[in-house]
């Protein structure tokens, strides 16, 4: 059969967000592909430069719907470091609880999507049903299911009442039970193993070479997690493990994510049980001194970095957002070659892409001197 070009996206049922692959396929095998990103430039970085520190946080939360707490936390963490603020431990713990709940709901969502792309809709329905428990906890704590609005410069906005802590602890055992079941399913369910094993294989060297982050890298045996290697919030005090895997394929990435789900429940449990007393915020000054910082954070999808430059006013001079999806794209392009056409959605979904979060870069073609 001659080579055919299959154009997938920007509208395609497997991709809920705009991205375009031009896949050159020989029968059902992929020969090479071209990636086209940035269909959805939203101008968030420029908008962030025009708002003061109180008003910028809700905007940054809206960079991503799934990891909204990540973006707000990484930004306030950076600004607090520039201002030289010491955040009270109770605020640190509350931020950690929200962050880990967010990781749980993100990974459960991902597990459902991964099952959906192989047509296993039952697991999709079940994980999204169980995700509701996490969302209910988040709604109870923060007042909203998606954009939690917990952060402000200098601490958190809302305190956790004892009733909320108790309700969350009550929900945890059932959730742990379910997560145990998912760990078992991922490792034993033939219908998933047959589609996930040996698909999108990436060695440790390749993962390092192409700069993969997060669960994608950890599934290839890269033992790296910002939470452990550059501790922030309460992670230094909480006992937990970095989950790595040596499979390097989609199966490995699934194993890493369900392992992290379990670790997250344990972190949340520890934080809820050992929540320190005290104030939940310190008063932040209106202006930040001149400075530059690269703030790092382990978002559910991988390492998230905000580069922040302040100039002594109440606004940032520049904020540059590097989302984990951008770091993982190159690895997808490499993984896809020589795979089956049927495996495209599986491999793409395996990095948990969040495309509209990523669409903020300028690609400069140096040869033609054309900006885009």
């Amino acid at each position: 059969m001659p080579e055919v070009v299959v154009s997938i996206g920007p509208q395609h049922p497997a991709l809920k967000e705009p991205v375009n692959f031009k896949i050159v396929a020989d029968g059902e095998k992929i020969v090479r592909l071209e990636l086209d990103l940035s269909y959805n430039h939203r101008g968030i970085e420029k908008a962030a430069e025009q708002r003061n520190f109180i008003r910028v946080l809700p905007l940054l939360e809206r960079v991503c719907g799934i990891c909204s707490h990540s973006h707000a936390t990484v930004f306030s963490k950076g600004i607090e470091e520039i201002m030289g603020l010491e955040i009270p431990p109770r605020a640190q713990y509350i931020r950690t609880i929200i962050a880990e709940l967010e990781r749980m709901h993100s990974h459960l969502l991902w597990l459902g999507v991964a099952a959906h792309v192989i047509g296993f809709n039952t697991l999709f329905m079940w994980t999204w049903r169980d995700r509701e428990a996490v969302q209910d906890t988040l709604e109870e704590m923060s007042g909203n299911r998606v954009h939690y609005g917990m952060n402000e410069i200098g601490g958190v906005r809302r305190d956790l009442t004892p009733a909320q802590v108790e309700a969350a602890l009550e929900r945890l055992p059932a959730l742990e039970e379910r997560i145990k079941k998912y760990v078992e399913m991922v490792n034993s369910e033939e219908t998933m193993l047959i589609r996930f094993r040996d698909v999108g294989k990436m060695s440790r060297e390749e993962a390092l070479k192409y700069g993969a982050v997060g669960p994608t890298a950890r599934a290839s045996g890269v033992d790296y997690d910002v939470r452990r290697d550059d501790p922030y919030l309460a992670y230094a005090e909480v006992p937990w493990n970095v989950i790595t895997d040596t499979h390097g394929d989609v199966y490995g990435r699934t194993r890493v994510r369900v392992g992290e789900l379990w670790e997250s429940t344990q972190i949340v449990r520890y934080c809820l049980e050992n929540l320190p007393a005290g104030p939940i915020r310190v008063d932040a000054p209106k202006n930040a001194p001149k400075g530059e910082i690269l703030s790092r954070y382990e978002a559910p999808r991988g390492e998230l970095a905000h580069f922040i430059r302040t100039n002594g006013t109440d606004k940032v001079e520049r904020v540059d957002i590097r989302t984990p999806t951008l770091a993982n794209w190159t690895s997808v392009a490499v993984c896809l070659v020589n795979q089956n056409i049927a495996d495209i959605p599986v491999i793409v979904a395996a990095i948990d892409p969040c495309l509209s979060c990523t669409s903020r870069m300028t690609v400069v073609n140096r040869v033609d001197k054309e900006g885009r």
Partner: protein
Amino acid sequence: MTDPVFILLYIFIFPGFFFLISYALFFAYLDRKIAARMQQRVGPPIYQPLADLIKMLGKEVINPNGVDWRVFDAIPLIALAAVMTAFLYVPVLGYSPLAFQGDLVVVLYLMALPTIALFVLGWLSRNIFSAIGGIRAVTQLFIYEVPFFLALLTPAIMAGSWSITEIVVWQQHNLWIIFFQPIGFIVALIGLQAKLERTPFDIPEAETEIVAGPWTELTGRRLALMDLATDVSLVVGSALVAALFLGGPMLPWVLAPFWLNGIAGFVLFLVKTLAVLLLLSSIKVATGRIRIDQLNDIGWKYIASAAVVQVGIVLVINYLWVVP
């Protein structure tokens, strides 16, 4: 039995086309409802398939650029006509009045027609997703059709007849064929699932990979008719499996008034087809999609060999035990 009025009633009203279409819509509803409840969802209301059908019949029909619209209009009709004709030879009230020697073969080939229709549709659509889907449909046909045919022909070998009604009568005097051929029954179920392109084998219309495969360019009444054809083949397939393996719509003894046999047969038909549907829905819910190369592997290595083994067993049984 040869009264033309009776035959016309049989073909058009009961248990012919009218009953078939209502039952197909009910089957589609039940299939979705069972799947939904297994996933702890609510599922659709009972009128949903009918509402979908009526809605789609009224929608605008879009012709893709450069496609022969006459062929596009005809293909869903051919597919629907084929499976509806196939149903006439499947016994519903005990006997089928249209039965003849060899109707099993006719039914099997008529049921293969929708797949060919899908392939032609995909090929004509001038759409890369449809073309890939069409190729996948026909590749899949080559894989499952041989074991499926073998599995459904073994009852015929056992009963010594090529007529579905006679196979049912044979089971009335002896045991259900599933007791002699459990492997054949499983192969037939898998083959039926593959023929209907339901979940482990929905490779040709894999939503997340190739949009809707050959169905991508279907709109309006074409989509409605094609959907109906799929629903109808679900009924025909279940009825066929129920007739060939589960004794069909016949009690092992004859009841006193003649018409009571018909009613008992109809109730048995409903119970047995619904049992087959429950099995098919469970397979659909419990599995994810496999890849076409994996299907090729599994299909020829295991399913086809299982079907051949079954044929061998049946030949041995027939040799040792002379059918009375």
